[in-house]
């Protein structure tokens, strides 16, 4: 509103009520505009999250007597969970999967790719870029097929090994965790590569050149100048990739089904098995809650790292 010092009291009151009317109309319009989004989010997004907190404390089940009478059972799902060796195994598997597939695998490979592709022949850069991105655009379920075929007993990898005189390996049985980790790196690296390419493009060339003139080695320029400058992107990317990998179900499920035994049973697979194979929905939800809490924790870090202005 314009601040007019010589405004008469009556017009000031009029202006006030008119603007209040306008304000109310705006408020009503906002409410209407936001309503569909709110409803959908409330029922299908926030609702299930709240239900997670409720069901995790019940003996909800799909079959048997508990299916009829669902009861509040306090912390017993969690007591069972912490005593369940399978849960501990799943947590360990998840940690290994996150560490090697997301934090080390995709991040490091994505960074190396972005760094090496910098200022290379544009046509070459394009071809490599397209190959890497193709793995990213391919739906998860197809990624799983590609890798099952590739690592199969008579698959491409073993055929190549035999060409050079080595014995074939039953990859999916002998190295199941490494197999699902590599498949996920193959699928996800493009994202990190694109993020780091954008970040590296933002580093002014003059700063690097000045450091080289001052006698810095390539490694020093990278370690002391480039990396600190793109620190923000590294942190945010690491969190996003971690969150994405935390939720991976399809890839592992289609490649190994969590097996052999429990060897690739990450938390999402464990949750699925308890809820839909053993029909223990309450226990499954308790595992969901753990998964969700880890997600919340990492998301909070994400919000902090973004330093968003809303």
């Amino acid at each position, binding site marked *: 509103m314009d601040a007019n010092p010589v405004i008469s009291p009556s017009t000031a009151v009029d202006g006030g009520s008119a603007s209040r009317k306008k304000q109310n109309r*705006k408020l009503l319009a*906002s409410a209407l*505009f*936001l309503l*569909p*989004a709110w409803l*959908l*989010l409330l029922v*299908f*997004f926030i609702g*299930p*999250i709240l*239900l997670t907190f409720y*069901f995790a404390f019940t003996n909800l089940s799909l079959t048997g007597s508990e299916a009829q009478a669902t009861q509040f059972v306090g912390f017993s799902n969690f007591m069972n969970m912490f005593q369940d060796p399978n849960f501990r195994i799943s947590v360990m598997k998840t940690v290994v999967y996150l560490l090697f597939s997301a934090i080390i695998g995709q991040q490091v490979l994505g960074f190396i*790719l972005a760094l*090496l592709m910098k200022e*290379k022949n544009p046509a070459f850069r394009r071809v*490599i870029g397209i190959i*890497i991105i*193709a*793995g990213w*655009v*391919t*739906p998860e*379920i*197809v990624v799983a*097929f590609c*890798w*099952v*075929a590739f690592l*199969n007993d008579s*698959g491409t990898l*073993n055929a190549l090994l035999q060409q050079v005189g080595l014995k074939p390996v039953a990859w999916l049985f002998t190295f199941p965790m490494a197999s699902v980790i590599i498949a996920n790196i193959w699928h996800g690296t493009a994202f990190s590569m*694109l*993020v780091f390419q*954008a970040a590296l493009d933002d580093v002014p060339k003059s700063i690097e050149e000045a450091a080289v003139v001052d006698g810095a080695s390539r490694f020093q320029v990278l370690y002391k100048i480039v990396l600190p400058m793109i620190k923000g*992107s590294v942190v*945010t*990317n690491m969190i996003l990739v971690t*969150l994405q990998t*935390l*939720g991976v*179900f*399809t890839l592992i499920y*289609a490649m190994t089904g969590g097996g052999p035994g429990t060897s690739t049973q990450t938390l999402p697979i464990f*949750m699925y098995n308890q809820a*839909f194979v053993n029909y223990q*929905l309450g226990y499954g*939800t308790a595992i*969901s809650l753990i*998964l*969700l809490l880890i997600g919340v924790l*990492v*998301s909070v870090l*994400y*919000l902090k790292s*973004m*330093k*968003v202005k*809303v």
Partner: protein
Amino acid sequence: MKRKSIKVEKVLPYSILTVIGVLFLLPLLWVVVASVDPNANSSIKVPSAFTMDNFKSVITDPVNIRAFIIGLLLSLGQGLLVVLVAGLAAYPLSRYQLRYKKPFMFTILFMTSLPITAVMVPVYQLFIYMKLQDSLWGTMFFLTAAGLPYAIWMLKNFMDAVPLELEESAWIDGASVWQGLKRIVAPLMIPGICTVGIFTFSGSWGNFFVPYILIQTPEKLPASVTIYQFFGNFGMVEYGKLAAFSILYTFPAIVLYIFSQRFMSQGFSLGGASKG
């Protein structure tokens, strides 16, 4: 001596990149080659002959056609709903000073990062309570809600870039807020709307877990689940058909990705995208 090291320094990145590129290409190349090989197995080999029979047999199976149509309707419906609902929600968030805007936008951003996998067990239970289990509409609404946070966040930022003056001049000419949004703001946001729409579509087109949990009737399953069942039933025998099916299923995702590249110039600068 020095010249030699410079040469190595120049050649080395190209060699490393070529090796990585070949390693990345191999698993993908198999699908392409196997799909046109009448005697495909799980290893890459020069096809014994060139054939389109694998594609023919996948396309001519009415079960597969139905699964593709269901998948398309599900993803298209969800994509349209997301763009529409998120576009409406983005308007007041972009244009008005609202008291709860800040916490709302933070909640939205927070939601974009939560793994959907984690809520699927309670969602399944919710669907049983609401009698929505095995419902394609219910699945579409859930997918819509799951896609909304990202879409609202993106569209709000795209809308912020549309100058308010254009809208104001339309208001002076007598246009309502709704008309201003429809005739002035939305057309200027086409690139943003397309980007969000394409990403949302691709996300649900490729989503296996959600329909796998929420849909039970085999006749209602979208392509993402039927392809998995195909793999389970015939995958180890009919590699050629599985490969052809995979290519047909991947095709829309790739086409749309290429299409979206026209609209996305700075999508991956995390620093730039954070401005709200």
